[in-house]
Each structure stands twice: as C-alpha cells, then as structure tokens.
C-alpha cells in the first residue's frame, strides 16, 4: 500500500497507472509531487513521467472502452480535483479486468462519479464558450480574459479556432497563468510576463480599437432592452449566470457612457 506521486500532467498519471500494474501494488492515493504530505505512514513512490508507458496505458484503454469514454477520462482529469486520479485508476482497473466495456456501468462508483465530473467539466467548458467576451485592440487582436473553475482552455480551443478562423485572438486564463493565441494559422500556448488587463478583464483604453467602447456600449444597451421587467426572475437568472462569472461579462459591468 503506497502513495504514488506524479508530476501533475495527464501523461504522468497514465505512467503512474502503468507503474502500479508493474509493481502490483495497490495505491492508497495518487497525488501530485507538490501535494505529497511528509510523515504519512505509507511509503511514497515517485513516478517519473514516461511517454512510452503512458501511451501503452492509453492505447490499452482504447481497446477496452470507446474513444469517447476514454476522452471523458481526460476531461474529468482537467477538473483538477484531488480525488480524480485515483478514480481514473479504479476505472482503468475495472476496464482492464472486464471483457465487456464498463463505460455504462453507472451502478459502480468510479464510473458514475467520473461521468458526473466529466459533465461538470463539460458544463464549465460550455460556459466559457458562452461567456468569453473579446475586446478588439488597435492592432486587430481580439483579447479575452477568463478564470474558469476547471482547466478547460485546452478543450475549448478547437471551438474558437473553427469559429473565429479569420481573426487573431488570444484567450488568457488568469487563474492558471497561460493563454492560447491564434495567429490565423494555428493555435499556440503562451505565457505573459505581465497581465495587461485589469481586475475586471478590461484592457487599457489606449490600446483599444477606436470603436471598441461603442460596441461594448451597444451590447449593454441591447442587454438592457431585451429584458421583460414583468417577468423578472432573479433566482432563475442566477442559476444560469452564477455571480462568479459576472466579473468578465461586458453586459454586467457598470453602464458605459
């Protein structure tokens, strides 16, 4: 019974699963290097990420469950929740031991819980696809700031690449300090030394394109005027846009004049 520690990447986790099988040792926990608590009674096994081993686990899983189900594991991993690595291991063990696909075995805890976490991640990614607000800069870059609950930037990239194929854009995750930049050809991951936007995600006025404020204003006007006051339902409103998402939403900022 050991604690397996890994580097926090998905490949690292897959390597850890490989090692668990090779050593035939049940894990009590799978944690990131940084989260290892010294003084635990269980011995700690430090896993060094190995892409070949990771690939073997990944391919192996592909033979036991559908590709969609396998992708769901990766998405659940992006939730960055501490219990997920062990759940993924349990799922893998169940899958490897079974002759039929276990992906719909919702009566088993790890399958059902991973399905639920995957759904949460999906919801968050869908919200980001909805709530991202670009600001246009004077050099025609469309810039947006996000701070999602889960690390969803990797899975929403494709959506924005398809949709905004003819404009340069940059989406920056201020929680995880990295962003994606699309240069009309491809998407690349970038890190900024210094964040340009202020706390509500707004860029300084001097770098905005001259009509940017006008369109933000028009959007606020529109948002204000499609409301039907007679039907006001704040509870429902908040269920759809929880308060934590408001800070980067143009329509929820003080009215521009």
């Amino acid at each position, binding site marked *: 019974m050991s604690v397996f520690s890994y580097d926090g990447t998905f490949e690292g986790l897959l390597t850890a699963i490989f090692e668990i099988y090779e050593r035939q040792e049940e894990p009590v926990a799978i944690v990131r290097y940084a989260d290892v608590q010294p003084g635990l009674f269980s011995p700690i096994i430090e896993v060094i990420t190995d892409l070949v081993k990771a690939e073997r686990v990944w391919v192996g899983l592909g033979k036991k469950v559908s590709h969609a189900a396998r992708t769901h594991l990766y998405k659940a991993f992006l939730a960055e929740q501490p219990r997920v690595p062990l759940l993924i291991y349990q799922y893998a063990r169940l899958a490897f031991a079974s002759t039929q696909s*276990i992906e*719909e*075995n*919702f*009566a*088993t805890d790890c399958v*059902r819980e991973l399905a639920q976490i995957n759904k949460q991640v999906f919801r968050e990614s*869908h919200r980001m*696809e*909805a*709530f*991202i*607000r*670009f*600001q*246009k800069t004077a050099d025609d870059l*469309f810039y*947006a700031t996000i701070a999602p609950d889960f690390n969803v930037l990797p899975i929403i990239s494709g959506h924005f690449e*398809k*949709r*905004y*194929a*003819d*404009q340069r854009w940059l989406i920056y995750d201020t929680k995880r300090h990295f962003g994606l930049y699309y240069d009309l050809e491809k998407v690349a991951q970038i890190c900024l030394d210094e964040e340009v936007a202020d706390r509500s995600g707004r860029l300084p006025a001097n770098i905005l394109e001259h*009509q940017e404020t*006008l*369109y933000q*204003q*028009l*959007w606020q*006007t*529109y*948002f204000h*005027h*499609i*409301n*039907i*006051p*007679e*039907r*006001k*339902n*704040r*509870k*429902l*409103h908040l*269920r*759809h*846009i929880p308060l934590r998402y408001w800070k980067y*939403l*143009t*329509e929820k900022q003080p009215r521009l004049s």
Partner: protein
Amino acid sequence: MNDKVQEKLKILADAAKYDVSCSSSGGKRKNQNKGLGNAEGMGICHSYTEDGRCVSLLKILLTNYCIFDCAYCVTRRSNDIKRAAFTIDEVVNLTLNFYRRNYIEGLFLSSGIFKDSDYTMERLVRIAKKLRQEHKFNGYIHLKTIPGASEDLIKEAGLYADRLSVNIELPSELSLKALAPEKNYPQILQPMGAISRELVQNKEERKLFKMAPAFAPAGQSTQLIVGASAENDQQILHLSSQLYQDYNLKRVYYSGYVPISDDNRLPVLAATPVIRENRIYQADWLLRFYGFGVQELVNDFYPNLDLEIDPKLAWALRNLHFFPVEINQADYELILRIPGIGVKSAKKIVAARRFTHLTFDHLHKIGVVLKRAKYFITCRGQSLVQKDFSEEVIRRKIIFGENSVRSALVKQQLDLFQQAG
C-alpha cells in the same frame, strides 16, 4: 450617428423581445471558407436576461413601423410609440461586430410590415444574403417569414437562413379574426406549408447531390400566445401536435401574454401566466420526447393542465393502474413515463441494469427524483412506500409532504388564480 444607432437599438430590441424563440441549435453550417463563424450542433446561450431567458441571438426588428393592427402586439399601428428603422448596413454591422466579440450566435431578424409583405420580406432576405455572400458569415440566421410573402422570396430566404418561422400567435382562427383583423389562417399557413414542402424536397435533393444548397437546415418554428385569448390548453396542445405532424415543425414556442396593451379587445390579466406557460412547455416536451399522445395529457374530461403538478405526474395519478413499474425489467418506454425520471436517467437505468440489479440507492445516485418516483416504482419487487396510496393522497404527499419545495412564484400565481376565480 452612433447615438442614432443606440436609439434605434433601444426601440427595435424592445419591440422584438416578446418573440420567445432564441434557439441557435440544429444548424449544420461549418466554417469552411475561412470566413467568420459556424452554426453546428448545439446552440450557445451567451447571456441570460434578468427574467431568465437565454440570449443567444441578436434579436431585433428591422423596423417597428407596421400597417397591421394586431391587438396583442406592441408595434400595432394604433399604438402611440416611438418608431424607428435600421438600414441594411446597420443590421449587418451590428451582427458582425457582436459576433466577433463572442456576444451572440447570430441574428434573429423580424420586422413590422411596412408598405406590403413582399417589400418587407425582400429587405430581410437582402440582409441575410449580404451577410452570407459579402461577409462570409457562417453564424446562425433566423428569419421571420412575413405573413403573405410570396413563395419565391421564402425559397430565397431559406437559402441564407438556418431557420425560418411564421408566428401563428393566436391558437384559433376565431381569436385571430377578433384580435388581428388583417391576418387570417391561410395567410399564415400558406408560407408554413411552402417551407415545409421545400424542406422535404431539399432533403431528397441532398440525398442525391451532396452539394445541393441546404434549405433552412435548422428547420422551421412558430409561436403561440398563451392567455391573450380564451382557448384552453386542450385546444393549444392539439394545435401544436397537429403542427408538429403536418408541417414538420422543429419547435412550437409558447409565450405567456405580457399585459402590455390596454387595447379593449383583450382580456384583463393580473399578471403574465408564467406557470401555465411552463406547464404547456412540459406537455410539449412529453409529446416530443416521451412518447405521450396529446389525448393522454388533455382531453374533454381534463381540458386544462393541472397548475399544481407537472403534466407527467398528473397523467400518472390518473392512470395508477399502470404502476408500480419494476425498474429492473420494464421497457424503456414505460420507464420514461414514471414521474421523477427524465430521458437521461431512463437511459442510464437501462444501461446500468445490464451489469447489476439496481437498488433505490443506485437510482438516487443516478439522479432519479425519488420524492416523486417512489410511489410508482419497485426495485426487485421492493417498494419504498408501505402501502398503495390513493391518487389524492399521493398528490397531497408530493405537494405538501416532507422536503417539498414550492416556489414562491407558484404560490403567488395560484393565489392570483384563486382570487380571479
């Protein structure tokens, strides 16, 4: 000039907001030409109004000048309000600039009728065409078909739009005559029929030639106003189920009448009938996704839906002889009919029971609402309730029993209802 656009946007967004459809799903338009946008698969709600409705599209009228005088409509000729009209370029620019900033999925364009139907329709089509052809815009476009517009224009509209809609608004010809003297059913049903025929024909064409241009790939929809005229739920739901059948509609929307007009042709309403509207939507869902027939939900004995409980529960209570249903054996179709179990839970149940016998604990974890379901199911022959309760008792237990959450809104609306009655 910017102030002018602001002012127009205020007026023309205000005028368009009573059209409830804001769906942007079901399209198949890909961004293949390295242009702007796509409209594939599920829609996205980019924001929500304070009344909790989805904001997915830039929903505006081209103009609110109108030659018609429909009692329920804010833009009716006899109403003394500010009037405005966008130019074609203003609409195109707003759409593109909102879209590029990820505010919207596309455009929902409707209009008051100025001059005549064809003249108005032609303007709408021209805007869609310009977006598609000059700006390589592949986002979602929903065009309202103007009653009485010619078939040629409708055909052309379908080439650029993802969805077309003609609003029926009033659920019977009689009320239409009384409240919208310039409109008549044939005038509304004729374009609807034209769209429906065109959709069928296009589907055939695309079977033969993959490259044949798509016609309104997200189909057509319509809207009925609830509460502006005397029809009961039976009449409304019969009409919708007929529309789904005969015209292949994707959606029928229902809009609880907001008392905006003091026109004396209309009934006096204390408040918008939101609960009734909600129950009708629930019934509509049961018709489309749960395999219910309209007769089962509303009929001569029960012409109106129960406001206190949802229509599925109401059906189950009237048909207790179907229950209890054994979760581990019953067909999917029957599981779908159990109150407290939705499409997703039903699918999970059918999938998971292949691996093991399901217990109440499993059901709870899968997401079944046992509070309602427990009166109607057994797991391996066991039940969670001690004995068979009568219809009345179950009903009372669900509404007033432990953990029952009655929203303030329901209470308020029921009170109003009782006062009125």
